[in-house]
C-alpha cells in the first residue's frame, strides 16, 4: 500500500510538470501577444504611433523579447518559488489575484461532488429496487434530460425561473453589500444562500450519469445467486440490500470520481461565466481573450492540478474500498 501511494505521488508530480509545459505552449499559440494588443489599443486612444525603440523597451520590460523556452524556464523558476508572474491586464502579481478564486472553485467542485453522490446514490438504489415503477420512470426521464441539457442552459433556465417567479437575481456568489467586505460569519451565510444554484447546475450532469451507472450495476447484482441464497436464509430485505449488492455496486461509483472531477471543473467553468461567479472560470475566460499569458498559464495549471488531485484521491479511495484491487496490487 505504501509503495503504491508513493508511486502515485511521483506520477502525480510528473503529471503536474507536464501540465505546466502543455499549458505554457497552448497559451503561446495565439498570434501576437499581450503587448501587441496593448499597443494597438494605446495607438488607437492617443492617435500616435509608438516608436520602435519604445516598443522594444516595453517588450524587454515585460520579458516578451525572450524565446519561448527561455520564457518558460524563467516562469517555471518563479513558480517553484511560489511566484506566478505578473498579470499584464490587472497590473498585479498573479499570486494575489487567484488565491480566493481558486479556493472558491475547489469549494464548488467538492460541494458539487458531494451533491452528486448525495442525490445519485439514494435515487439509484431506489430506482433499481423499484424497477419499472412510476418513480423509476420519472427518475430515468429526468436523468436523461439532465445528461442532455448543456450546463449553461440549465443555469440560464434557473436564472430565468428565479427572476420571473421570485424576482430574484441569482447571479454571483455574494450580495452586493458583501462583495468587497472582509470575510465574516455574515458573509459566509450570504455565500451559503448563493451556492445552491451553481452546485445544482454543475452537479446535475454527473448525477444523471451516476444514477444510470448505479442502477445498472445494482440490477445486475440483485439478480445474482448470492442474493437469492441470502433471501432464502431469511436475511431481512434492507439488510440484504445494503450488506452486499449496494456495496458491490458502489465500486464503479467510487472509480467514477476520476472522470467526475474533470467534468465538474469543466462544468464549473462555463457555469461560473454564465452566473458571474468569482471563481477561476470567468477570470480564465477574460485572460484568454486579453492574452494575459502568466495569468492564463497559472489558472490553467491550477485548474488542472485540482483535477489531478481529485483523480489521484479517487484512485487511492478505490484501492481502499475494493478489496479485490488491493489483493491484485499485493499479488503483483
Amino acid at each position: 500500500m505504501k509503495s503504491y501511494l508513493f508511486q502515485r505521488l511521483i506520477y502525480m508530480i510528473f503529471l503536474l510538470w507536464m501540465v505546466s509545459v502543455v499549458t505554457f505552449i497552448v497559451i503561446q499559440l495565439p498570434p501576437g501577444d499581450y503587448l501587441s494588443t496593448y499597443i494597438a489599443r494605446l495607438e488607437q486612444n492617443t492617435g500616435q504611433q509608438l516608436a520602435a525603440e519604445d516598443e522594444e523597451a516595453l517588450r524587454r520590460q515585460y520579458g516578451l523579447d525572450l524565446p519561448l523556452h527561455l520564457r518558460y524556464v524563467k516562469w517555471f523558476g518563479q513558480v517553484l518559488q511560489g511566484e506566478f508572474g505578473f498579470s499584464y491586464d490587472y497590473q498585479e502579481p498573479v499570486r494575489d489575484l487567484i488565491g480566493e478564486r481558486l479556493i472558491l472553485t475547489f469549494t464548488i467542485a467538492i460541494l458539487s461532488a458531494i451533491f452528486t453522490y448525495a442525490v445519485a446514490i439514494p435515487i439509484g438504489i431506489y430506482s433499481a429496487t423499484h424497477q419499472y415503477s412510476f418513480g423509476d420512470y420519472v427518475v430515468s426521464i429526468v436523468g436523461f434530460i439532465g445528461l442532455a441539457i448543456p450546463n449553461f442552459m440549465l443555469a440560464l433556465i434557473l436564472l430565468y425561473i428565479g427572476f420571473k417567479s421570485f424576482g430574484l437575481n441569482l447571479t454571483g456568489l455574494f450580495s452586493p453589500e458583501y462583495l468587497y467586505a472582509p470575510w465574516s460569519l455574515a458573509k459566509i451565510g450570504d455565500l451559503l444562500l448563493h451556492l445552491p444554484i451553481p452546485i445544482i447546475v454543475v452537479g446535475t450532469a454527473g448525477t444523471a450519469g451516476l444514477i444510470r451507472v448505479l442502477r445498472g450495476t445494482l440490477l445486475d447484482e440483485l439478480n445474482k445467486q448470492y442474493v437469492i441464497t441470502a433471501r432464502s436464509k431469511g436475511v431481512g430485505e434492507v439488510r440484504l440490500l445494503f450488506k452486499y449488492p449496494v456495496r458491490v455496486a458502489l465500486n464503479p461509483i467510487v472509480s467514477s470520481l476520476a472522470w467526475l472531477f474533470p467534468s465538474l471543473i469543466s462544468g464549473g467553468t462555463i457555469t461560473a461565466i454564465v452566473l458571474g461567479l468569482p471563481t477561476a472560470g470567468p477570470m480564465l475566460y477574460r485572460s484568454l481573450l486579453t492574452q494575459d499569458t502568466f495569468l492564463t498559464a497559472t489558472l490553467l495549471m491550477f485548474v488542472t492540478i485540482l483535477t489531478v488531485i481529485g483523480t489521484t484521491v479517487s484512485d487511492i479511495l478505490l484501492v481502499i474500498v475494493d478489496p479485490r484491487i488491493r489483493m491484485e496490487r499485493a499479488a503483483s
Partner: protein
Amino acid sequence: MLRLIGLKRPKGKLESAEFNEAYYLASQRQLVWRKFRRHRLAMSSLMVIIFLYSLAIFAEFFTINDYQKRHVAYAKAPPQALHFIDEAGNFHLVPFIYQLKQELDMETLRRNYTEDTSQRFHLRFFVKGLPYKLLGIFDTDIHLLGVDAPGVYFPFGTDELGRDLFSRTIVGARISLSIGFISVVISFCFGCLIGGISGYFGGKVDVVAQRIIEFIVSIPQLPLWMALSAALPPQWTSIQDYLAISTVLAVLSWPPLARAVRGKLLELREADFVMAARISNMGDYEIIVKHLLPSFASFLIVVLSLSVPGMILAETALSFLEIGIRPPAVSWGVLLQDAQNIRSLSQSPWLLIPGLFVILTVLSFNFLGDGLRDAADPYKQ
C-alpha cells in the same frame, strides 16, 4: 438499456422450430437489424435524427424567411401561434396566423406585440420565395411554408435585430449537426491509430500510450478547449474557423476512444483466428485491416454514436462563449449567445428555443447509441 427506460425486453425466447431455423440461418447483419428494430426508443430516435439532418441538408427549403434579413419592424417579436378557429368561431382546415400589431409601452419603452384579429393570413405550402440552390446544385425558389405578403410568420419569434429565429435555427443546424460528425471522425482516426497500436503491440508502447491517455483524460476539457479556440486568429473565415474548431474538439476527445479500441483489441488479440493468421505468417498490417477491424466494426459504430453528442454540446458551449463559431456564421451555440444575460432572457425567453434542439439531438444520439449497443451483439440473449 431497455430495462433502464422501463420498456419490457421483448420476449426473445423463440419457441417455434421454423423461427429457430430462420434465426440460425440469418446473417449477422440481419440479426443486428432485427434486434435494433425491436428497440423502440432507439428506432424513434433514429427517426428524429434523420428528420433533424434532413432539416439541415434542405435548410433553405424549410426556412420561411431569409435567415439574415432584419425585419426591423418586428424586432423581439414573440413566437406566433397557429390558429385553426377564428374570432367568429369558424373552423379552418388550413391553419392561419394573425397579423402582429406593435405597441410601445411608454413607461418601460418596451415593444409589446398583440394579434390583430382583423387581418388573417393562411399558411401556404410550397410557396415561391427567395431563390436558392437546393443541395448547392439545383436553382429553385420553392419553400415548404409561407404566408402571403404583407403577412409575416415567425414560428419561434425574432431576435433583437428582428431576424427570424425559426429560419436561423434550421440554418444553424447545419454547423451544429455536422461539426459533431467531423470532429468525431478526426478523433476517431487518432483514437483508432493510437489505441490500435497500443493494444496490438502491447508492452512498452502500450505503457507510454496509456500514460499519455491518462494525462489527457485528467485535464479538464473545457478550459483547454477555451484556450485552444481562443488561439484561433480572428481574421479567419467561417470555414477555417469551422475546421479549426472541429480539430480542437477532436484533439482532446480521442483518448476515451483510444482506450475503448485498445480494450477491445486486447480481447481480440487472444482470439484463435488471430493466432491462426499469425501462424500462417500474415503481416501485422494485414491482420489489423483484414481480421481485427471487421470484427469490431459494430463496436466502433456504437462508440462513435455515443461520442457525437459530447461534441455537439462542446461546440454549443464554445460558440456560446463567443470563442467557437463566430457570427455571421450561424450555429445553435451562436444563437444561444443572444440569451446570455438575464435582461434579454426575461424579455424574450423564446431565444432559448435553439437550446431545445440541442437537447433533442443529444438525447436522440444517446438513445440511438444505447439501441446500437444492444443490437451490436445479436447473439447475446
